[in-house]
């Protein structure tokens, strides 16, 4: 029941007109976000302008987790219903998610270098995020395998489900592991409360990125549908052109015994 409603919602949400609307919304939202992050919000007292990276880094991270949650849900839906559209959604969301994870890690490094003096700190969150990246890159690698679409989709669905379940366990283990060494306890976001205007900017950035995510996924879904259709059209003229071979009586073959 829930699945059918979800399918209807999805069909409406990913149509052409929805895509266009989303596109414009994303453009507007991102523009607002950029203006707010760069101009309106004040520079951080301690870290200076570098801290503005937060307005991209944090939404990126949020989006990564959202994407993979969608992958998780879509994977379950696919295994239950076997409808290829859920697999397409999972794949689209995974691709967008991997993009944002990579962005998160990259921005994290950019932010960390001036603040901590080093590119990589084995900080629990950046480490977990990297492992997350590897898991979902694995998903995409399986997608590229030359297998039957149904089998590939099933494997990916299992990865999508199991990978997501693993994330909290990985997070926990890495956090414990990291706490063995009293490393820099100053988190990038700091314990200091944020000025309200900065908080608002951050929330707007998160919202803008979410709209961006929806747009990108919708776009990717359309490309996915076109890909499948193109593949179909590429092969079927060949099939239609060759008429079924006129049935010829097969001579009774004597297969030479190999036993």
């Amino acid at each position, binding site marked *: 029941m829930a699945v059918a409603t979800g399918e209807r919602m999805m069909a409406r949400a990913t149509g052409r007109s929805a895509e266009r609307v989303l596109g414009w919304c994303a453009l507007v939202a991102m523009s607002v976000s950029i203006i707010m992050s760069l101009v309106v919000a004040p520079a951080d007292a301690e870290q200076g302008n570098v801290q503005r990276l937060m307005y991209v880094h944090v939404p990126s991270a949020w989006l990564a987790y959202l994407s993979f949650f969608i992958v998780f849900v879509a994977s379950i839906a696919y295994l239950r219903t076997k409808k290829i559209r859920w697999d397409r959604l999972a794949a689209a969301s995974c691709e967008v998610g991997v993009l944002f994870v990579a962005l998160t890690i990259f921005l994290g490094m950019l932010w960390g270098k001036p603040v901590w003096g080093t590119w990589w700190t084995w900080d629990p969150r950046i480490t977990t995020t990297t492992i997350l990246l590897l898991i979902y890159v694995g998903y995409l690698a399986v997608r590229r395998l030359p297998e039957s679409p149904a089998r590939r989709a099933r494997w990916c669905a299992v990865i999508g489900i199991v990978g997501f379940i693993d994330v909290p366990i990985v997070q926990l283990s890495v956090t414990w592991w990291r706490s063995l060494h009293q490393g820099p306890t100053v988190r990038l976001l700091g314990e200091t409360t944020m000025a309200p205007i900065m908080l608002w900017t951050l929330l707007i950035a998160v919202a803008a990125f979410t709209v961006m995510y929806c747009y990108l996924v919708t776009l990717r879904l359309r490309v996915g549908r076109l890909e499948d259709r193109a593949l*179909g059209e590429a092969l079927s003229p060949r099939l239609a052109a060759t008429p*079924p*071979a*006129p*049935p010829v009586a*097969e001579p009774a073959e004597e297969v030479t015994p190999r*036993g």
Partner: protein
Amino acid sequence: MIAAQDLRKTYGPTLVLDGVSFALARGQCLALLGPNGAGKTTLLRLLATLLRPTAGALQIAGVDALREPERVRPLLGVVAHGSYVYEDLTARENLRFWCRLYGIDAGSVDEALDRVGLGRDANTRVAGFSQGMRQRVAVARALLRRAELLLLDEPYAGLDDTAKETVDGLIAETGGRGSTVILATHDRTRGAGAHRTIYVDGGRIVPDPTDPALGPAPRPAGAAE
């Protein structure tokens, strides 16, 4: 026993089965004839619940085979391209394992191996078997299995005359106890003994080209073509 309606199967863009419908009563033997690539194997795998059709309906023994394949599988016996053997085990060990899985008494394993002419090779690892020998292990397994519905896909491939006769014996035995048999083959002489014949080509049931008198199996009203 079997009711297939409008079965369709596409592999991506390729249409392999195009609206196959037929019905088969319990205890009957059906021969599926047709040239290579006609879709016989796909149809057989569909019937064996190893594949799901893109469209269509299938009932086996009154059970919706598409919704509840697990209920249908205990009825099936399959002799097909893959002989389902483990290379590192001997013929006897392979059969004993399958007997355990199916809850069959393993006492008659040796007898079955003798019947298919593998008595001497019972203790040899399957890795050394030829294709024909593996096929015979599969036949032995079917003999032990005594399935309600026996599906055979080109069972005569790679076998010598004695072994082919053993397959015929298997089919006769299965029919003899009132079970149903579907045999897919392009060897027309073997299929001659069947109650019914269906000729498949290009993914559809077509009139048998060499025997105009026989005609295609009666199809339920409203079927494709």
